[in-house]
């Protein structure tokens, strides 16, 4: 409304001969500038992914400019066969899946319980606990990496085990904050009513809260999933046995050992990269809105 008034004022101030067109032209020209900027941006962001797929599908990826636009007839899946014979995609994908699945399970069960307790249950020291958690979470991983390695691999003897791989990620703190945020939005009258009816806290959790939690679970799962699936450093430190390597680690080891020997190893590397990247990208395209909202929420809260 206010903007319409402004435009009218501007239009009235102009000479009578050209009442409409300049305003319209200006309106049209601004989005063009925006669109050009956005298109250049999108090209820079998306082209490497297009190039990854196209190169992975060429038996010997062509490094020339024409290689970005190959003849569709010359595309093949040979590189996927080749990477599979080097790093066993099924086994490494399963390992990535177990690692991610363990983190998801821990986060949903224990993170959900903690988020609920921090949002809706009244117990002494709750606020203090919450602020201590926030304080702990600013500790950077690079500082904790060495002591964690000593503790988990050396003292607990959990090197080369799935449990040792999962442990440092077992409960995603961001997901706990998302759960807490979600449970705080639920009206506390609902809980009071259930309590007055004599329901135990456990019953409230399973009968009242759990059925309402689905949207929070989805968001928490999405942001938790990417972490372990993409994680490289920790599983790389903790796994020495080939049978336990997740795909990210296996591909990284392939890159750092094979890349130096082969003349053009990029076809196989990129085939592995496609297999690693595609599940997350598909998940993202399906649940774009949840991803965007949750990352804004977690980012702004810092």
């Amino acid at each position, binding site marked *: 409304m206010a903007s319409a008034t402004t435009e009218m004022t501007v239009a009235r101030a102009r000479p009578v001969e050209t009442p409409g067109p300049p305003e319209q032209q200006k309106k049209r020209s601004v989005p063009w500038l925006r669109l050009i900027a956005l298109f250049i941006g999108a090209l820079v962001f998306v082209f490497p992914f297009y190039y990854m797929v196209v190169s992975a599908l060429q038996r010997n990826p062509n*490094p020339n400019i024409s*290689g970005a636009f190959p003849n569709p007839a010359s595309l093949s899946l040979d590189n996927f066969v080749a990477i599979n014979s080097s790093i066993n995609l099924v086994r490494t994908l399963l390992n990535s899946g177990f690692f991610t699945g363990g983190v998801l399970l821990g986060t949903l069960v224990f993170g959900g319980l903690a988020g609920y307790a921090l949002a809706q249950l009244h*117990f002494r020291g709750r606020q203090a606990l919450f602020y201590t958690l926030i304080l702990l979470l600013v500790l950077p991983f*690079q500082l904790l990496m060495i*002591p964690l390695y000593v503790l988990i691999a050396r003292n607990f003897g959990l090197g080369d085990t799935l449990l040792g791989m999962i442990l440092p990620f077992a409960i995603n703190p961001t997901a706990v904050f998302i759960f807490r945020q979600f449970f705080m939005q639920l009206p506390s009258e609902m809980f009071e009513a259930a309590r007055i009816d004599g329901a135990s806290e456990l019953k409230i959790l399973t009968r009242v809260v759990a059925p309402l939690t689905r949207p929070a679970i989805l968001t928490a799962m999405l942001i938790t999933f990417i972490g372990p699936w993409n994680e490289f450093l920790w599983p790389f430190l903790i796994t020495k046995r080939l049978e336990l390597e997740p795909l990210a680690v296996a591909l990284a080891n392939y*890159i750092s050992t094979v890349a130096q020997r082969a003349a053009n190893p*990029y076809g196989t590397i990129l085939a592995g*990269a496609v297999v690693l990247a595609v599940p997350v990208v598909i998940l993202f395209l399906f649940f774009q809105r949840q991803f965007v909202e949750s990352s804004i929420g977690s*980012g702004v809260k810092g």
Partner: protein
Amino acid sequence: MAAAVPARASRTRLRSLLGAQPIGYLFAAPFVLFLVGIYAYPFFYAIYMSFFDYFFSAPGAEVVRPFVGLANYARVLQDPLFHLAIRNVVIFLVINVPLTVAISMVLATALNAAIPLRTFFRAAYYIPYITASVAAVGIWLWLFSGFGLVDKILGPLAPNPSFLINGLWAMPIIALYVTWKGLGFYILVYLAALQTIPKELYEASKVDGASPVSSFFAVTVPGLRPATLLVVITAVITGANFFTEPYLLTGGGGPDNQSVSPVFLIYRFGIEQNHPGYAAAIGLLLAIGVLIVSGINRFVLERD
């Protein structure tokens, strides 16, 4: 009945001591245990280790790890590799922070309107952010390999030796890579912050005859200041933390250690060479550095 009264009384006393729903302790316990075990305890363990000539031993073996006081810190501060790693963090930040702030602010502003393909753009920008860095590094290795597309496009302008094996270019390419990968997240942060700038401010500047560009600098940039603080601090933390890039993209901090990062040194000294005390000292110095830089940023960007 007679037995129930004292039971109820003691429950009331318990409630006033612990709160209305003490079961909350039970529900929060696993997470508290997790944070103590994975964050708090290792933190103090890192401090402890950094004062010892610590090394790994078989579980249960009796070994002597001599107390060395501040010797680890003194050696780290004199280590030329550590100096190189800090220089690289500085190069990284000088390239990454201004580019990240400028590009994500401009693209978020461009996105913040009813324009066609808005969802497509937003998705396009976000995809590198959610992609595994090992996969994304694979793409960049191919793009910037000596005979790759970028060198082909640049032709005679391409540096020799090529980018990733060139001491002058290795760090800037890592900084560009991290900028590219993270922008999508920062665009979303700015996009959210743009919603908090009152529309009236734009209308007022329009009435004053300001062009879209000058109202961007007069209204948008100052209005986004809190978000910029967040972006800068996050970028500093990222800059202190990179590891996968020097490990994979430049083949182990190469060429000739010109792209080593502090975390890469922590890995090399702490795990490969079995000097975890030394590595813990690097980690602590780095964390203190990040804390100081974040504090300075906060002071500068939140002034007035």
